[in-house]
């Protein structure tokens, strides 16, 4: 049987998410016996999420087939992994060093050919952030435990 797989999967995720939070909303401790207490709105929202999630699943059997390939996800997922590592190391290495490494690593991953820009971009970008955010606007920058 042919159906729209991405829509089917997203419908399942939406329904499970709704179900998960609906169960949690029954555990919200309130002192009020009134039905319109703190758990009322979460219950309404999650119930509707579940209903619409189910409708997305049902419609996935009627929708046109989506021709997404796993290959197009490769670049973005690699980038997400890199950014996740970047976010993890910021509290350790500090913002500037982590940023320089992240930009360099990204350009390396995408096989950026211009070697001058490959070396200069991380430093120029960090210097601009320093000048604009820290000096000019005095906006705080994340500091690391090492730097």
């Amino acid at each position, binding site marked *: 049987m042919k159906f729209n797989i*991405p*829509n089917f999967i*997203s419908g399942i995720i*939406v329904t499970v998410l709704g179900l998960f*939070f609906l169960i*949690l*909303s029954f555990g*919200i*401790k*309130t002192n*009020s016996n009134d039905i*319109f*207490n*703190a*758990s*009322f*709105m*979460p219950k309404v*929202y*999650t119930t*509707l*999420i579940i209903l*619409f*999630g189910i*409708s*997305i699943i049902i*419609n996935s059997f009627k929708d046109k087939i989506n021709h*997404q390939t796993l290959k*197009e*996800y490769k*670049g*973005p997922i690699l*980038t*997400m992994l890199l*950014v*996740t590592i*970047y*976010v993890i190391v*910021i*509290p350790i290495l500090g*913002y500037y060093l982590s*940023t320089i490494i*992240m*930009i360099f690593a*990204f*350009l390396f991953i*995408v096989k*950026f050919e211009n070697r001058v*820009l490959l070396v200069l*971009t*991380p430093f120029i*970008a*960090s210097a601009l*952030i320093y000048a604009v*955010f820290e000096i000019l*606007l005095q*906006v*705080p*920058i*994340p500091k690391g435990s090492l730097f």
Partner: protein
Amino acid sequence: MDVLMEGFSNTLTFNTILFIFLGVISGIAIGVLPGLTATMGVALLLPITFGMEPLPGILLLIGVYFGAVYGGTITAILINTPGTPASAATALDGYPMTQKGEARKALTIATLSTSIGGIISVIVLILLAPQLANFALQFSAPETFALALFGITIISSLTGKSFAKGIVAGLVGLLIATIGLDPIGGTQRFTFGSMNLNNGVNLIPVMIGLFAAAEAFRSVEKLFSKDKIEVAIKKTKLKWSEFKSLITTILRSAGIGTFVGMIPGSGADITAFIAYNEAKRFSKDKSKFGKGEMKGIAAPEAANSSLTGGAMIPMLTLGIPGDAVTAVLLGALIVQGLQPGPMLFEQDGVLVYGLFIGMLIANLLILILGIYGTRFFTKVLLIPKAILVPVIIMLCAVGSYSLGNNYFDVIVMLVFGIIGYFMIKNDFPASPLILGLILGPIMESNFRRALVMSQGDFSIFITRPITAVLLIFAFITLFSPLIIKLIKKKYRKI
């Protein structure tokens, strides 16, 4: 009138005009780059305004917004690649004019139409917004609840390709808004024992994640395409007689744009197509359209720029943003300690009128920069896309951190960046989620307050006329996707 004059003198300072100028320039550069949208630009530059005074800060972002809508036009005309969806209709006649060697003329028409359209819509905003705000001052808890419900319904059902997905996005936003302490009794909800979640999920990192990081992840997909872009601008100037023949089209389209912009959820792209089609309908020689007809540029440009002023009306007077960019601007106002809605005009009237004057200045700057700076802006296209992605990411990190000096916000940005990417891939629109997050607390607290007022009697939502009308609108909106689908089908066939 005094407030208008005071707003006028507050805006006409060197600093404020400089920030509007910087905003417009950055906006045009962002708009020129295909893949970078006006929403992304405003979200990315939002953190810069944290340390600024409200007026120059918000005007910088408004400059980015207006500039980006215009910037998208430059590439639509020169290389047939609309920088933003708002300029898709402009490419239909803009690019054929470039092919005929009339790029300069096409750009001049676009610049003039954009500025005139923008200025008209700001004048309508100045005239209409205070009246609407005055009317909205009568709103009590039931009306505010109904208005919030209407706002979320209309945005969720009108944006995106699928009605169900739009509604789910809005509901998820509303659900996220319930995280933290509940607004009436202070009960903890979905905090999972985290201190960081006690105050709820911060709006700014969510916006930066959904609109900037997610788009950056998506643009990696196209990173390996190496299109050579060559831009040649020939010097064919627009004659005065030619401009005169466009005035009616510009005025009509500006009217369409302003009016449609006031309806929350109406997109700039579809508005531009509506104006284009109307220009074609009124034209004596319809066959010229699509082959380099000047009215085919003037109409969508006047419409998409006048939409910006129109979209500001519900945002400033009712606190309901008209589209994704105004949702981000609403966030910017909240960060500055201002609460968009009818009270904004009462409490910060000078600031509001300062914003209006600033918008007029932004449109005039577009006119000047558009006429003299196009060559410079096309150079932005030479920046390799590969460099933009990590630069956007580093701005996302610093932007989400700098609001509250909280590292947790950087994690929130990353999480929503990843969620946002998969939302884009699966046609879930992001703006209803943001709107749900903004309107969730307003909706819930006013719903519960209304029931306290009526001692639990639901008839309070039917017996009060404004509440009843707004709830009927919300109900009708649920059936509107079908009508919109039919309209889109008709206009896209052009």
